[in-house]
């Protein structure tokens, strides 16, 4: 025991002798306050150095299991990750929660129920679970991870590519056919082709009164068409002219004047 402790003991004995000798009137107000504080702390179980010494001597408590494990592990030379658990933590395990803590506990419960990994304590819980009893990886997931590494095309992707290419080719072909049917002039020689170069229809198909095959050049000799641009108007004019020609030819074929 240190000199200071010895002095405290002496002072305490002195107080006791004085109390026993002349009664409570000799207590000062400061002493009363200290005595009151000591009584309160003993009753509420809060830790006071002197009270702890006296309690430990008179009523030694049980050694906390966690503390014992720590001491034992240290003695056996095992790895210990943290210092001894303070007994105050053990006492606080069931202490009432304030509103903030209750809210945090509710949030944790909700996050655990929803398996939300954005909650840090849920992340920790998952880490514990995954270290203690890791689940196997799903076969499909494993395959999805493996294929890119091996650079093997997946069947689904291959199908998608093939389907897309086929569909694209069909759409392109249909577009060309449609365009050709609706406006065959677009695929003929440029409009500057001279009329003399256009082949006459076969003689057996020719009916008197029919409009002869002709170039579209003559349709655009009017000065209102610019040299460039105006494609829509040009197509409209060709279409109108060809429709008129077709109508005329059908009438001629049927023998109508």
């Amino acid at each position, binding site marked *: 025991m240190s000199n200071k402790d010895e002095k405290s003991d002496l002072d305490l004995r002195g107080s006791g002798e004085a109390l026993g000798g002349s009664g409570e009137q000799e207590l000062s107000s400061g002493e009363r306050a200290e005595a009151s504080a000591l009584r309160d702390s003993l009753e509420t179980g809060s830790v006071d150095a002197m009270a702890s010494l006296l309690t430990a001597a008179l009523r030694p408590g049980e050694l906390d299991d966690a503390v014992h494990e720590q001491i034992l592990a240290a003695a056996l030379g095992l790895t210990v990750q*943290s210092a001894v658990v303070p007994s105050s933590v053990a006492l606080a395990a069931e202490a009432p929660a304030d509103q903030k803590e209750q809210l945090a506990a509710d949030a944790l419960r909700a996050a655990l129920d929803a398996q939300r990994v954005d909650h840090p304590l849920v992340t920790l819980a998952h880490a514990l679970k*995954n*270290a203690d009893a890791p689940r196997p990886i799903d076969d499909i997931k494993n395959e999805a991870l493996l294929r890119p590494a091996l650079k093997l095309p997946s*069947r689904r992707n291959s199908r998608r590519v093939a389907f897309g290419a086929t569909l694209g080719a069909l759409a392109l072909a249909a577009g060309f056919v449609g365009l050709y049917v609706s406006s065959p002039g677009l695929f003929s020689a440029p409009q500057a082709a001279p009329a003399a170069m256009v082949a006459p229809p076969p003689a057996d198909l020719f009916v008197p009164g029919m409009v002869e095959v002709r170039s579209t050049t003559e349709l655009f000799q009017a000065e209102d068409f610019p040299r460039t641009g105006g494609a829509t108007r040009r197509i409209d004019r060709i279409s109108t002219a060809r429709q008129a020609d077709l109508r005329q030819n059908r009438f001629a074929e049927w023998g109508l004047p």
Partner: protein
Amino acid sequence: MTAVPLESPFPGELGFAPVGVAIRALLTRLSMAVSVSVQPATLAAIVRPVAGLRFEPGVEQELCARAKSGDRVALGSILRAYGPILYRSVLLPRLGSDAVAQDALAETYARVVERFDQYEWQDCGVYPWLRVVALRIALDILRSKKREMLFEPDDLAREIDKADKGGKATIDVELYEARDMEAARAKVDAALKTLNPRYERAIRLRVLEERPREDVARELGVSVATFDVVLHRALSSLKKTLQKAGLAPVGDKSESAS
């Protein structure tokens, strides 16, 4: 060990389908439970290799030789057999999160494909080499993210050193698997032992055993609402302990402070 299908027409050409997975799973169970040795050529005509199956040493050596010469089908067979083991016993316990562990497995596959030409056959088989590759990937992730718990980079560095020295190389993949998983469980136990016994019990029952909170509350002798608070305190306390040791995620200060 059970014989395994090898000559696989598998993957790129035949693709992948859930039905195939189910068939393979069924065949796996049958082959393991009844100990039927299936002829490779016969089974290969029906299904692809089963993830998680082990190879006979001679067959594995032949596969490795083919893979080393650039045969991706052979390498795919090896990785299909051992990848799930790496995930479950090496990556997931050390990295803690499914998503991170899956990223690590993908990275492991990529690195194996890239460097398999450097692999030299050993009598202990290819798994120890694959395990070291996976450990190195996990170590890189632990060092870069600094948010995983329980395992610290030094733990993995020590494991890699030990494996590099070839101390206890064995051909038994299951032994590696068991050792790795036991090491992870020991980490969990050590971490939980630092807690108040009530906290440890709350975490064991609710998190590790995944028992309903009502049951756990009853077992601890508290109301369900009080149990929620106890579990919150327990996990917060564990997080603080791990943070002190420099291992825990540091994302949410408020949680650790509560």
